[in-house]
Protein backbone atom coordinates (compact mmCIF):
# COMPACT_ATOMS: atom_id res chain seq x y z
CA UNK A 1 0.00 0.00 0.00
CA UNK A 2 1.34 3.38 -0.91
CA UNK A 3 1.56 5.66 2.08
CA UNK A 4 0.31 9.09 0.79
CA UNK A 5 0.90 12.07 3.05
CA UNK A 6 -2.47 13.67 3.81
CA UNK A 7 -2.98 16.66 1.50
CA UNK A 8 -4.87 18.52 4.19
CA UNK A 9 -1.79 18.51 6.38
CA UNK A 10 0.32 19.84 3.52
CA UNK A 11 -2.24 22.52 2.80
CA UNK A 12 -2.50 23.62 6.38
CA UNK A 13 1.25 23.59 6.85
CA UNK A 14 1.78 25.76 3.79
CA UNK A 15 -0.80 28.29 4.93
CA UNK A 16 0.61 28.48 8.45
CA UNK A 17 4.13 28.92 7.13
CA UNK A 18 3.00 31.68 4.81
CA UNK A 19 1.12 33.50 7.56
CA UNK A 20 4.02 33.26 9.95
CA UNK A 21 6.43 34.61 7.38
CA UNK A 22 4.22 37.54 6.37
CA UNK A 23 3.38 38.38 9.98
CA UNK A 24 7.03 38.43 10.92
CA UNK A 25 7.83 40.64 7.96
CA UNK A 26 5.10 43.14 8.88
CA UNK A 27 6.06 43.20 12.56
CA UNK A 28 9.65 44.04 11.77
CA UNK A 29 8.55 46.93 9.54
CA UNK A 30 6.15 48.34 12.21
CA UNK A 31 8.77 48.54 14.99
CA UNK A 32 8.64 52.10 16.42
CA UNK A 33 11.77 54.21 16.34
CA UNK A 34 12.97 55.65 19.65
CA UNK A 35 13.61 59.41 20.04
CA UNK A 36 17.04 59.62 21.57
CA UNK A 37 16.51 63.30 22.68
CA UNK A 38 13.56 62.85 25.07
CA UNK A 39 14.45 62.51 28.75
CA UNK A 40 11.34 61.42 30.65
CA UNK A 41 12.90 62.31 34.00
CA UNK A 42 13.61 65.89 32.87
CA UNK A 43 10.10 66.27 31.48
CA UNK A 44 8.64 65.05 34.78
CA UNK A 45 10.77 67.54 36.72
CA UNK A 46 9.76 70.26 34.29
CA UNK A 47 6.07 69.50 34.68
CA UNK A 48 6.33 69.84 38.44
CA UNK A 49 8.42 73.01 38.22
CA UNK A 50 6.00 74.53 35.69
CA UNK A 51 3.03 73.87 37.95
CA UNK A 52 4.76 75.16 41.07
CA UNK A 53 6.90 78.10 39.98
CA UNK A 54 4.98 79.63 37.07
CA UNK A 55 1.86 80.08 39.18
CA UNK A 56 3.83 82.08 41.75
CA UNK A 57 2.97 85.14 39.67
CA UNK A 58 0.32 84.29 37.06
CA UNK A 59 -2.25 81.78 35.87
CA UNK A 60 -0.81 78.77 34.11
CA UNK A 61 -1.01 79.02 30.33
CA UNK A 62 -1.28 76.07 28.01
CA UNK A 63 1.94 74.61 26.55
CA UNK A 64 0.21 74.59 23.17
CA UNK A 65 0.22 78.39 23.01
CA UNK A 66 3.74 78.61 21.62
CA UNK A 67 6.10 76.76 19.29
CA UNK A 68 9.29 75.14 20.59
CA UNK A 69 11.60 78.01 19.62
CA UNK A 70 9.20 80.52 21.20
CA UNK A 71 9.23 78.62 24.49
CA UNK A 72 13.05 78.76 24.42
CA UNK A 73 12.84 82.55 24.41
CA UNK A 74 9.78 83.01 26.63
CA UNK A 75 11.07 80.77 29.41
CA UNK A 76 14.37 82.65 29.44
CA UNK A 77 12.42 85.90 29.88
CA UNK A 78 10.57 84.31 32.81
CA UNK A 79 13.84 82.96 34.19
CA UNK A 80 15.11 86.53 34.54
CA UNK A 81 11.82 87.83 36.05
CA UNK A 82 11.48 85.06 38.63
CA UNK A 83 15.23 84.52 39.24
CA UNK A 84 14.85 80.84 38.43
CA UNK A 85 18.00 78.71 38.50
CA UNK A 86 19.05 77.87 34.94
CA UNK A 87 18.69 74.11 35.30
CA UNK A 88 15.11 74.55 36.55
CA UNK A 89 14.35 76.74 33.53
CA UNK A 90 15.72 74.06 31.19
CA UNK A 91 13.47 71.44 32.81
CA UNK A 92 10.45 73.68 32.27
CA UNK A 93 11.43 74.22 28.62
CA UNK A 94 11.71 70.46 28.09
CA UNK A 95 8.24 69.90 29.52
CA UNK A 96 6.61 72.69 27.51
CA UNK A 97 8.26 71.63 24.26
CA UNK A 98 7.21 68.03 24.76
CA UNK A 99 3.65 69.03 25.53
CA UNK A 100 2.85 71.54 22.79
Amino acid sequence: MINIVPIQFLRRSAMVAMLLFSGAAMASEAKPEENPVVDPAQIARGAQAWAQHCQRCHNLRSPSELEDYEWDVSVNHMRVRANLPGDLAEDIKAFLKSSN
Partner: protein
Amino acid sequence: MARLHKLLGFSLTLALLIGSGFAFAQEDSQALREDIKSLEEQLETMKKRLDAIESAKEHTDQRIETVARQANATDAADTKWHLAGYANAGFTVIDDGSDENSFTAGQFNPMFHFQFRDNILFEAELELTTTSEGETETEIEYSQVDYFVNDNLTLVFGKFLSPIGQFQERLHPSWINKLPNAPAGFGHGGAQPLTEIGFQARGGISAGNGIFTYTVFAGNGPQPGHDGLELEGFGNDNNDDKAFGGRFAFLPNPNLEFGLSLMTAGDIAPDDLDTPGDAGYDLYGADFAFTQGPWDVRGEFLSSEFDGLSTEEEHGKVAFWHKNEEEGEEEAIDIPQTDWQAWYLQVARQFGSWEPVVRYGEFELDARSEDDHAAYLLLSKSPAGPDAPFVGTEKRLTLGLNYLFTPSVIGKIAIEDRGFDDEHLEDEQRLMLQLSYGF
Protein backbone atom coordinates in the same frame (compact mmCIF):
# COMPACT_ATOMS: atom_id res chain seq x y z
CA MET B 1 -5.03 -23.68 -11.44
CA ALA B 2 -5.57 -22.61 -7.96
CA ARG B 3 -2.29 -20.85 -8.08
CA LEU B 4 -3.34 -19.14 -11.31
CA HIS B 5 -6.56 -18.13 -9.68
CA LYS B 6 -4.70 -16.70 -6.73
CA LEU B 7 -2.36 -14.88 -9.09
CA LEU B 8 -5.25 -13.46 -11.09
CA GLY B 9 -7.05 -12.47 -7.93
CA PHE B 10 -3.98 -10.80 -6.54
CA SER B 11 -3.39 -8.99 -9.84
CA LEU B 12 -6.95 -7.81 -10.05
CA THR B 13 -6.87 -6.63 -6.46
CA LEU B 14 -3.60 -4.91 -7.07
CA ALA B 15 -4.97 -3.31 -10.21
CA LEU B 16 -8.06 -2.22 -8.40
CA LEU B 17 -5.98 -0.77 -5.59
CA ILE B 18 -3.69 1.03 -7.94
CA GLY B 19 -6.60 2.19 -10.01
CA SER B 20 -8.52 3.46 -7.03
CA GLY B 21 -5.39 5.03 -5.64
CA PHE B 22 -4.76 6.68 -8.90
CA ALA B 23 -8.32 7.91 -8.97
CA PHE B 24 -7.98 9.11 -5.40
CA ALA B 25 -4.71 10.79 -6.27
CA GLN B 26 -6.32 12.51 -9.20
CA GLU B 27 -9.08 13.91 -6.96
CA ASP B 28 -6.54 15.10 -4.34
CA SER B 29 -4.36 16.57 -7.01
CA GLN B 30 -7.30 18.66 -8.20
CA ALA B 31 -8.02 19.79 -4.63
CA LEU B 32 -4.32 20.49 -4.12
CA ARG B 33 -4.21 22.61 -7.24
CA GLU B 34 -7.22 24.52 -6.09
CA ASP B 35 -5.65 25.03 -2.65
CA ILE B 36 -2.42 26.15 -4.20
CA LYS B 37 -4.27 28.58 -6.41
CA SER B 38 -6.13 29.94 -3.38
CA LEU B 39 -2.89 30.29 -1.47
CA GLU B 40 -1.29 32.05 -4.39
CA GLU B 41 -4.18 34.50 -4.54
CA GLN B 42 -3.93 35.14 -0.83
CA LEU B 43 -0.19 35.58 -1.13
CA GLU B 44 -0.70 38.07 -3.95
CA THR B 45 -3.17 40.01 -1.81
CA MET B 46 -0.78 40.11 1.11
CA LYS B 47 2.06 41.22 -1.16
CA LYS B 48 -0.08 44.09 -2.40
CA ARG B 49 -0.90 45.07 1.18
CA LEU B 50 2.75 44.98 2.10
CA ASP B 51 3.56 47.19 -0.87
CA ALA B 52 0.92 49.69 0.26
CA ILE B 53 2.32 49.72 3.79
CA GLU B 54 5.83 50.19 2.42
CA SER B 55 4.67 53.13 0.36
CA ALA B 56 2.85 54.76 3.29
CA LYS B 57 5.85 54.28 5.54
CA GLU B 58 8.14 55.84 2.96
CA HIS B 59 5.84 58.85 2.73
CA THR B 60 5.71 59.15 6.52
CA ASP B 61 9.49 58.89 6.77
CA GLN B 62 9.86 61.67 4.24
CA ARG B 63 7.40 63.82 6.15
CA ILE B 64 9.20 63.17 9.45
CA GLU B 65 12.50 64.06 7.83
CA THR B 66 11.07 67.31 6.50
CA VAL B 67 9.62 68.33 9.86
CA ALA B 68 12.79 67.36 11.70
CA ARG B 69 14.85 69.36 9.22
CA GLN B 70 12.63 72.41 9.79
CA ALA B 71 12.76 72.00 13.57
CA ASN B 72 16.50 71.60 13.55
CA ALA B 73 16.84 74.66 11.35
CA THR B 74 14.78 76.71 13.86
CA ASP B 75 16.60 75.34 16.88
CA ALA B 76 19.92 75.78 15.14
CA ALA B 77 19.23 79.39 14.18
CA ASP B 78 21.41 81.91 15.98
CA THR B 79 18.48 84.25 16.60
CA LYS B 80 15.04 83.35 17.91
CA TRP B 81 12.40 85.85 18.76
CA HIS B 82 9.07 86.04 20.52
CA LEU B 83 6.40 88.74 20.62
CA ALA B 84 4.39 88.97 23.83
CA GLY B 85 2.65 91.67 25.82
CA TYR B 86 -0.68 92.74 27.15
CA ALA B 87 -3.49 95.16 26.51
CA ASN B 88 -6.51 96.35 28.38
CA ALA B 89 -9.50 98.63 28.15
CA GLY B 90 -12.14 99.54 30.66
CA PHE B 91 -14.57 101.93 32.27
CA THR B 92 -14.23 103.86 35.53
CA VAL B 93 -16.82 105.73 37.55
CA ILE B 94 -15.49 108.07 40.28
CA ASP B 95 -17.83 109.27 42.98
CA ASP B 96 -16.12 112.14 44.77
CA GLY B 97 -18.92 114.62 44.66
CA SER B 98 -18.55 115.04 40.93
CA ASP B 99 -20.24 113.05 38.18
CA GLU B 100 -17.02 111.84 36.65
CA ASN B 101 -17.06 108.63 34.67
CA SER B 102 -14.92 107.60 31.76
CA PHE B 103 -14.32 104.87 29.31
CA THR B 104 -10.61 104.19 29.42
CA ALA B 105 -8.81 103.24 26.26
CA GLY B 106 -6.43 101.45 28.50
CA GLN B 107 -3.03 100.64 27.24
CA PHE B 108 -1.17 98.48 24.81
CA ASN B 109 2.16 97.05 25.94
CA PRO B 110 3.98 94.97 23.33
CA MET B 111 7.02 93.07 24.58
CA PHE B 112 9.83 92.08 22.25
CA HIS B 113 12.18 89.24 23.08
CA PHE B 114 15.18 88.51 20.86
CA GLN B 115 17.58 85.73 21.84
CA PHE B 116 21.03 85.17 20.37
CA ARG B 117 22.00 81.50 20.73
CA ASP B 118 21.60 80.39 24.36
CA ASN B 119 23.24 83.15 26.39
CA ILE B 120 22.02 86.56 25.30
CA LEU B 121 18.46 87.86 25.48
CA PHE B 122 17.36 91.36 24.51
CA GLU B 123 13.96 92.31 25.87
CA ALA B 124 11.98 95.51 25.67
CA GLU B 125 8.47 96.64 26.52
CA LEU B 126 6.67 99.66 25.11
CA GLU B 127 3.70 101.31 26.74
CA LEU B 128 1.23 103.08 24.49
CA THR B 129 -1.58 104.95 26.21
CA THR B 130 -4.24 107.48 25.30
CA THR B 131 -4.12 110.56 27.51
CA SER B 132 -7.10 112.42 28.87
CA GLU B 133 -6.43 114.96 26.13
CA GLY B 134 -6.77 112.29 23.47
CA GLU B 135 -3.11 112.16 22.59
CA THR B 136 -1.00 109.05 22.34
CA GLU B 137 1.86 108.65 24.75
CA THR B 138 4.63 106.18 24.08
CA GLU B 139 7.12 105.14 26.72
CA ILE B 140 9.79 102.50 26.98
CA GLU B 141 8.99 100.54 30.13
CA TYR B 142 12.24 98.67 29.92
CA SER B 143 14.91 97.94 27.36
CA GLN B 144 17.60 95.60 28.59
CA VAL B 145 20.17 93.04 27.55
CA ASP B 146 20.40 89.88 29.66
CA TYR B 147 23.55 87.78 29.63
CA PHE B 148 23.21 84.30 31.14
CA VAL B 149 26.61 83.66 32.66
CA ASN B 150 25.67 80.35 34.28
CA ASP B 151 22.72 78.67 36.00
CA ASN B 152 22.92 81.04 38.95
CA LEU B 153 24.06 84.39 37.52
CA THR B 154 22.52 86.68 34.92
CA LEU B 155 23.92 90.14 34.13
CA VAL B 156 21.44 92.81 33.01
CA PHE B 157 22.30 96.09 31.29
CA GLY B 158 20.01 98.93 30.26
CA LYS B 159 16.70 100.25 31.48
CA PHE B 160 14.97 97.76 33.73
CA LEU B 161 11.95 97.58 35.99
CA SER B 162 12.86 98.28 39.59
CA PRO B 163 13.48 94.95 41.36
CA ILE B 164 12.26 96.47 44.65
CA GLY B 165 9.38 94.38 45.99
CA GLN B 166 7.13 92.22 43.81
CA PHE B 167 4.47 94.38 42.22
CA GLN B 168 6.44 96.61 39.88
CA GLU B 169 8.67 93.95 38.37
CA ARG B 170 6.40 90.91 38.28
CA LEU B 171 2.77 91.75 38.98
CA HIS B 172 1.93 95.03 37.24
CA PRO B 173 0.92 93.64 33.77
CA SER B 174 -2.84 93.92 33.57
CA TRP B 175 -3.43 90.21 32.92
CA ILE B 176 -1.39 89.34 36.03
CA ASN B 177 -2.59 92.13 38.35
CA LYS B 178 -5.65 90.76 40.16
CA LEU B 179 -7.35 94.17 40.19
CA PRO B 180 -7.76 96.94 37.58
CA ASN B 181 -5.32 99.29 39.32
CA ALA B 182 -2.17 99.32 41.43
CA PRO B 183 -2.19 99.26 45.23
CA ALA B 184 -2.11 102.62 47.02
CA GLY B 185 1.40 103.99 46.92
CA PHE B 186 2.57 101.61 44.23
CA GLY B 187 2.92 102.64 40.61
CA HIS B 188 3.21 106.16 39.30
CA GLY B 189 3.29 108.89 41.95
CA GLY B 190 3.80 106.50 44.81
CA ALA B 191 6.55 105.35 47.10
CA GLN B 192 7.71 102.60 44.80
CA PRO B 193 10.64 103.13 42.47
CA LEU B 194 9.46 102.32 38.95
CA THR B 195 12.49 101.86 36.73
CA GLU B 196 16.23 102.29 36.75
CA ILE B 197 18.92 102.63 34.13
CA GLY B 198 22.07 100.83 35.06
CA PHE B 199 23.36 97.36 35.70
CA GLN B 200 22.09 94.29 37.56
CA ALA B 201 23.46 90.98 38.72
CA ARG B 202 20.72 88.49 39.57
CA GLY B 203 19.86 84.87 39.78
CA GLY B 204 18.53 81.95 41.78
CA ILE B 205 20.33 79.28 43.78
CA SER B 206 18.70 75.99 44.73
CA ALA B 207 19.01 75.19 48.43
CA GLY B 208 17.58 71.78 49.21
CA ASN B 209 13.87 71.99 48.53
CA GLY B 210 14.04 75.79 48.49
CA ILE B 211 15.48 78.54 46.34
CA PHE B 212 17.43 81.63 47.32
CA THR B 213 17.07 84.52 44.86
CA TYR B 214 19.02 87.73 44.66
CA THR B 215 19.09 90.94 42.61
CA VAL B 216 21.63 93.71 43.12
CA PHE B 217 21.78 96.81 40.98
CA ALA B 218 23.55 100.11 40.41
CA GLY B 219 21.96 102.94 38.45
CA ASN B 220 21.64 106.65 37.79
CA GLY B 221 19.12 106.92 40.63
CA PRO B 222 16.16 109.25 41.27
CA GLN B 223 16.23 112.91 40.27
CA PRO B 224 14.25 116.04 41.12
CA GLY B 225 11.50 117.05 38.74
CA HIS B 226 8.23 118.94 38.42
CA ASP B 227 6.44 116.46 40.65
CA GLY B 228 9.09 116.40 43.31
CA LEU B 229 11.31 113.39 43.60
CA GLU B 230 10.93 111.20 40.50
CA LEU B 231 11.70 107.52 41.00
CA GLU B 232 12.06 106.60 37.35
CA GLY B 233 15.02 105.65 35.21
CA PHE B 234 16.87 108.63 33.80
CA GLY B 235 19.09 108.20 30.78
CA ASN B 236 21.55 110.77 32.03
CA ASP B 237 22.89 111.06 35.56
CA ASN B 238 22.90 114.60 36.95
CA ASN B 239 25.86 113.90 39.20
CA ASP B 240 28.56 111.34 39.91
CA ASP B 241 26.61 109.68 42.70
CA LYS B 242 24.92 106.40 41.85
CA ALA B 243 21.99 104.60 43.43
CA PHE B 244 22.51 101.08 44.73
CA GLY B 245 19.99 98.51 45.83
CA GLY B 246 18.59 95.07 45.56
CA ARG B 247 16.16 92.41 46.67
CA PHE B 248 16.91 89.17 48.41
CA ALA B 249 14.30 86.45 48.75
CA PHE B 250 14.01 82.95 50.10
CA LEU B 251 11.51 80.34 49.01
CA PRO B 252 11.47 77.46 51.51
CA ASN B 253 9.17 75.75 49.03
CA PRO B 254 7.66 76.90 45.71
CA ASN B 255 4.44 77.97 47.45
CA LEU B 256 5.99 80.46 49.88
CA GLU B 257 8.28 83.44 49.30
CA PHE B 258 9.79 86.04 51.64
CA GLY B 259 11.67 89.05 50.28
CA LEU B 260 13.68 92.03 51.59
CA SER B 261 14.48 95.12 49.49
CA LEU B 262 16.95 97.96 49.95
CA MET B 263 17.90 101.07 48.00
CA THR B 264 20.10 104.07 48.70
CA ALA B 265 21.07 107.14 46.69
CA GLY B 266 23.66 109.30 48.41
CA ASP B 267 22.91 112.60 46.71
CA ILE B 268 20.38 113.32 43.99
CA ALA B 269 21.21 117.01 43.63
CA PRO B 270 22.59 118.10 40.26
CA ASP B 271 26.33 118.65 40.24
CA ASP B 272 25.84 122.23 39.03
CA LEU B 273 23.65 123.10 42.04
CA ASP B 274 25.40 124.43 45.10
CA THR B 275 23.65 122.78 48.04
CA PRO B 276 24.52 122.99 51.71
CA GLY B 277 24.33 119.25 52.16
CA ASP B 278 23.60 115.97 50.47
CA ALA B 279 20.08 115.24 49.32
CA GLY B 280 20.02 111.55 50.08
CA TYR B 281 17.29 108.98 49.48
CA ASP B 282 16.94 105.65 51.31
CA LEU B 283 14.38 102.87 51.04
CA TYR B 284 13.75 99.52 52.65
CA GLY B 285 10.94 97.05 52.11
CA ALA B 286 9.63 93.58 52.83
CA ASP B 287 7.25 91.31 50.96
CA PHE B 288 5.75 87.84 51.07
CA ALA B 289 3.64 85.62 48.86
CA PHE B 290 1.74 82.38 49.39
CA THR B 291 0.43 80.66 46.27
CA GLN B 292 -1.01 77.18 46.40
CA GLY B 293 -3.77 75.70 44.33
CA PRO B 294 -6.54 78.29 43.99
CA TRP B 295 -5.12 80.58 46.70
CA ASP B 296 -3.02 83.68 46.10
CA VAL B 297 -2.12 85.68 49.23
CA ARG B 298 0.54 88.35 49.18
CA GLY B 299 1.61 91.59 50.79
CA GLU B 300 4.29 94.26 50.51
CA PHE B 301 5.64 97.05 52.68
CA LEU B 302 7.84 99.97 51.56
CA SER B 303 9.33 102.77 53.65
CA SER B 304 11.52 105.54 52.23
CA GLU B 305 12.86 108.94 53.22
CA PHE B 306 14.32 111.91 51.37
CA ASP B 307 16.56 114.52 52.95
CA GLY B 308 15.19 117.32 50.80
CA LEU B 309 16.88 119.47 48.18
CA SER B 310 17.89 123.06 48.82
CA THR B 311 20.00 125.89 47.60
CA GLU B 312 19.31 127.81 50.76
CA GLU B 313 17.93 126.78 54.07
CA GLU B 314 15.49 129.01 55.87
CA HIS B 315 13.36 127.76 58.73
CA GLY B 316 13.38 124.29 57.23
CA LYS B 317 11.87 125.40 53.99
CA VAL B 318 13.81 124.28 50.98
CA ALA B 319 13.76 125.58 47.48
CA PHE B 320 15.09 124.15 44.28
CA TRP B 321 15.46 126.24 41.19
CA HIS B 322 14.49 124.26 38.15
CA LYS B 323 14.63 125.45 34.59
CA ASN B 324 11.33 124.98 32.81
CA GLU B 325 12.42 123.70 29.42
CA GLU B 326 9.13 124.57 27.77
CA GLU B 327 8.96 128.19 28.87
CA GLY B 328 12.70 128.85 29.12
CA GLU B 329 12.35 130.20 32.64
CA GLU B 330 13.61 129.11 35.97
CA GLU B 331 11.01 128.29 38.53
CA ALA B 332 11.17 127.25 42.12
CA ILE B 333 9.97 123.77 42.93
CA ASP B 334 10.00 122.80 46.55
CA ILE B 335 11.15 119.32 47.35
CA PRO B 336 10.79 119.06 51.09
CA GLN B 337 12.21 116.56 53.51
CA THR B 338 9.75 113.74 53.15
CA ASP B 339 8.93 110.27 54.41
CA TRP B 340 6.86 107.78 52.42
CA GLN B 341 5.27 104.56 53.54
CA ALA B 342 3.10 102.22 51.50
CA TRP B 343 1.80 98.73 52.17
CA TYR B 344 -0.93 96.38 51.02
CA LEU B 345 -2.36 92.96 51.75
CA GLN B 346 -4.20 91.04 49.02
CA VAL B 347 -6.15 87.78 49.06
CA ALA B 348 -7.53 86.06 45.95
CA ARG B 349 -9.06 82.63 45.45
CA GLN B 350 -10.25 80.96 42.28
CA PHE B 351 -13.51 79.04 42.13
CA GLY B 352 -13.38 77.51 38.67
CA SER B 353 -13.31 80.48 36.31
CA TRP B 354 -14.39 82.98 38.97
CA GLU B 355 -11.93 84.77 41.24
CA PRO B 356 -12.94 87.08 44.08
CA VAL B 357 -10.19 89.44 45.28
CA VAL B 358 -9.80 91.64 48.35
CA ARG B 359 -7.02 94.20 48.73
CA TYR B 360 -6.42 96.70 51.52
CA GLY B 361 -3.58 99.16 51.49
CA GLU B 362 -2.36 102.46 52.90
CA PHE B 363 -0.11 105.14 51.46
CA GLU B 364 1.35 107.80 53.72
CA LEU B 365 3.33 110.84 52.65
CA ASP B 366 4.64 112.70 55.67
CA ALA B 367 6.36 116.05 55.31
CA ARG B 368 8.65 116.62 58.30
CA SER B 369 7.63 120.14 59.20
CA GLU B 370 4.84 122.62 58.62
CA ASP B 371 6.98 124.44 56.11
CA ASP B 372 7.59 121.19 54.30
CA HIS B 373 3.88 120.53 54.42
CA ALA B 374 3.18 123.90 52.84
CA ALA B 375 5.86 123.30 50.26
CA TYR B 376 4.32 120.02 49.37
CA LEU B 377 0.92 121.56 48.96
CA LEU B 378 2.52 123.91 46.47
CA LEU B 379 4.05 120.95 44.73
CA SER B 380 0.77 119.09 44.67
CA LYS B 381 -0.74 121.79 42.48
CA SER B 382 1.53 120.85 39.62
CA PRO B 383 -0.36 119.50 36.60
CA ALA B 384 0.47 115.91 37.36
CA GLY B 385 -3.05 114.66 36.88
CA PRO B 386 -4.72 112.07 39.08
CA ASP B 387 -1.43 110.86 40.55
CA ALA B 388 -0.32 114.24 41.94
CA PRO B 389 1.37 113.89 45.31
CA PHE B 390 -0.49 114.82 48.44
CA VAL B 391 0.39 115.09 52.10
CA GLY B 392 -1.32 112.72 54.44
CA THR B 393 -2.58 109.20 54.44
CA GLU B 394 -4.76 107.36 51.95
CA LYS B 395 -6.57 104.23 53.06
CA ARG B 396 -7.80 102.13 50.17
CA LEU B 397 -10.07 99.10 50.20
CA THR B 398 -10.78 97.33 46.91
CA LEU B 399 -13.17 94.43 46.35
CA GLY B 400 -13.00 92.73 42.99
CA LEU B 401 -14.46 89.83 41.06
CA ASN B 402 -12.65 88.42 38.05
CA TYR B 403 -13.81 86.03 35.35
CA LEU B 404 -11.12 84.02 33.59
CA PHE B 405 -12.23 83.58 29.99
CA THR B 406 -8.82 81.94 29.58
CA PRO B 407 -5.77 81.98 31.89
CA SER B 408 -4.64 85.21 30.22
CA VAL B 409 -7.93 86.88 29.20
CA ILE B 410 -9.48 88.31 32.34
CA GLY B 411 -12.65 90.32 32.86
CA LYS B 412 -12.55 92.38 36.07
CA ILE B 413 -15.06 94.39 38.03
CA ALA B 414 -14.09 96.14 41.25
CA ILE B 415 -15.40 98.68 43.72
CA GLU B 416 -12.97 100.81 45.65
CA ASP B 417 -13.19 103.08 48.66
CA ARG B 418 -10.46 105.73 49.11
CA GLY B 419 -10.28 107.65 52.35
CA PHE B 420 -7.94 110.64 52.80
CA ASP B 421 -7.03 112.44 56.00
CA ASP B 422 -5.76 115.38 53.94
CA GLU B 423 -8.33 118.19 54.18
CA HIS B 424 -7.60 119.16 50.59
CA LEU B 425 -8.72 115.84 49.21
CA GLU B 426 -12.23 114.39 49.22
CA ASP B 427 -12.94 110.77 50.02
CA GLU B 428 -14.06 108.88 46.94
CA GLN B 429 -15.53 105.63 45.73
CA ARG B 430 -14.77 104.07 42.38
CA LEU B 431 -16.37 101.45 40.18
CA MET B 432 -13.89 99.95 37.74
CA LEU B 433 -14.39 97.53 34.87
CA GLN B 434 -11.52 96.15 32.84
CA LEU B 435 -10.89 93.55 30.18
CA SER B 436 -7.26 92.53 29.99
CA TYR B 437 -5.51 90.25 27.54
CA GLY B 438 -2.04 88.81 27.97
CA PHE B 439 -0.57 87.47 24.75
